[in-house]
């Protein structure tokens, strides 16, 4: 796919915009499986779709290791070898009010979802946690869509602490959609343990991304994250 832009939007965090015109079907919560451009790295990198329209597909990724470091060198106009959209994506429930909880790189995959809820006049409250202010991104974008509460580990922006510190204070929601590190998801599972509609997007190291190799089972070994997920109702899976 053709690269439209690839810009640093926060500390070690890049927004990659791809030409989406050849994509036929796509859904919030799906992911793209990208070659990094390094010839000696053979595996693709799964990166969630942050948002899309008919023309463009936005991905947000953090530089972690060699693959994402190579991706940060992508230039506009170049081609990136991308497979996807892959995975099941989020189902939009027809409810009144939803809570969206994102942590770190888990914030991006929720943005398209939040947009779509808002578009359907479903109220969205977003709790977005970051390590610190310099790692935060997409905040204004979420603010356009509804109430946003920010937390940072070091207190450099919003409430000091993790998302748990603020969620305990919030009212009830018809559905909760979450993506982020394991402690965040675990906290939500404990907190909303009898809620019928807590949906989480999971991560695991992948090879094929299309369901063939079984690299990416959930912990309970019952589902493939790449194909049966990455989005699961938390009742279906072990974290």
């Amino acid at each position, binding site marked *: 796919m053709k690269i439209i832009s690839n810009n640093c939007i926060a500390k070690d965090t890049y927004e990659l915009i791809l030409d989406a015109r050849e994509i036929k079907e796509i859904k919030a919560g799906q992911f793209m499986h990208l070659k990094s451009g390094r010839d000696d790295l053979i595996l693709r990198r799964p990166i969630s779709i942050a948002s899309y329209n008919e023309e463009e597909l936005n991905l947000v990724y953090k530089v972690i290791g060699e693959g994402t470091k190579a991706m940060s060198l992508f230039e506009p106009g170049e081609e990136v070898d991308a*497979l996807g959209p892959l995975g099941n994506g989020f189902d939009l429930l027809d409810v009144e009010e939803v809570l969206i909880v994102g942590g770190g790189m888990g914030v991006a995959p929720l943005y398209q979802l939040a947009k779509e809820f808002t578009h359907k006049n479903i109220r969205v409250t977003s709790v977005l946690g970051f390590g610190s202010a310099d790692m935060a991104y997409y905040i204004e974008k979420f603010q356009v869509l509804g109430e946003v509460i920010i937390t940072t580990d070091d207190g450099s922006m919003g409430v000091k602490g993790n998302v748990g510190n603020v969620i305990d204070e919030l009212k009830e929601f018809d559905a909760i959609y979450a993506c982020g590190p394991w402690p965040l998801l675990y906290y939500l599972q404990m907190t909303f343990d009898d809620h019928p509609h807590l949906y989480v997007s999971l991560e*695991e190291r992948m090879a094929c991304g299309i369901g063939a190799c079984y690299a990416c089972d959930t912990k309970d070994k019952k589902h493939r994250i790449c194909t049966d997920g990455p989005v699961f109702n938390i009742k279906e899976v072990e974290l």
Partner: protein
Amino acid sequence: MNQLKVSLPGLELKNPIIPASGCFGFGEEFSKFYDLSILGAIMAKAVTLEERVGNDLPRVAETTSGMLNAIGLKNPGLEVILNEKYPFLAQFDVPIIANVAGATEEEYIEVCKRIHEAPNVKAIELNISCPNVSEGGVAFGTDPTVAKRLTKKVKAVTDLPLYVKLSPNVSSIVEIAKAVEEGGADGITMINTLTGMRIDLHTGKPILANKTGGLSGPAIKPIAIRMIYEVARAVDIPIIGMGGVETVDDVIEMYLAGASAVAVGTANLHNPMICKELIEALPAKLDELGYQSIEHLIDEVKKNS
């Protein structure tokens, strides 16, 4: 004349390109990318007597020009595979090579006895070389006596042609190859993965939950080529070569080493179209190198060795 056709014991292949076991599932996912009838054959994912849920996570790690896997022979077990998985593949005009694994001789034998029940299974690939399970697997592939005995016993219970898949984690792969030939194997498939490890710098622990995993991909190709070259000169049964094949040049190199057909593993995992691409690219490469056909190439290699 079909330029790409290959005859192997019990197998008449349209072309020599075969997705390798464990890298193609039971074909379902890849059938969304292209018509599986174009393939020479399919080496289906390993089958064991009972379901195996697989190893703990993570199961894959990346290495320079390669990858480690420790999937752990995850499969739904013989019954489900006979009733659902192979039958799904029956809609395609492609022979299945059933990759059979087990923890005990009895398990191998039991599975091999029944595997012909799926009529599209045209051959057995005896996996005596899986490095990722604690019992069985590779134990059968490192001792020539054990390998020979198992081959013999399996041969006795099935009429299907029997290919034995060899492990590269041995001092002398030629010894094992000779042993399975003596045991009655109709062919050899090689190589399975090399045992490797990656350690996470931040945790200080192996990345894979299983600690070690099987190394595959282009990194291992020179080892595969060397072993195929050695084995081809030591046995009379044909070899299906694999290990790091990604390009049509790699396919030819496998032939020059002594292979009679070529399986493609890891490359499917990052390029789901790879087998189709290789099949399409082969005729032009044969022309370029002056071979009329795959069979001509095989003959030339035999003549020169």
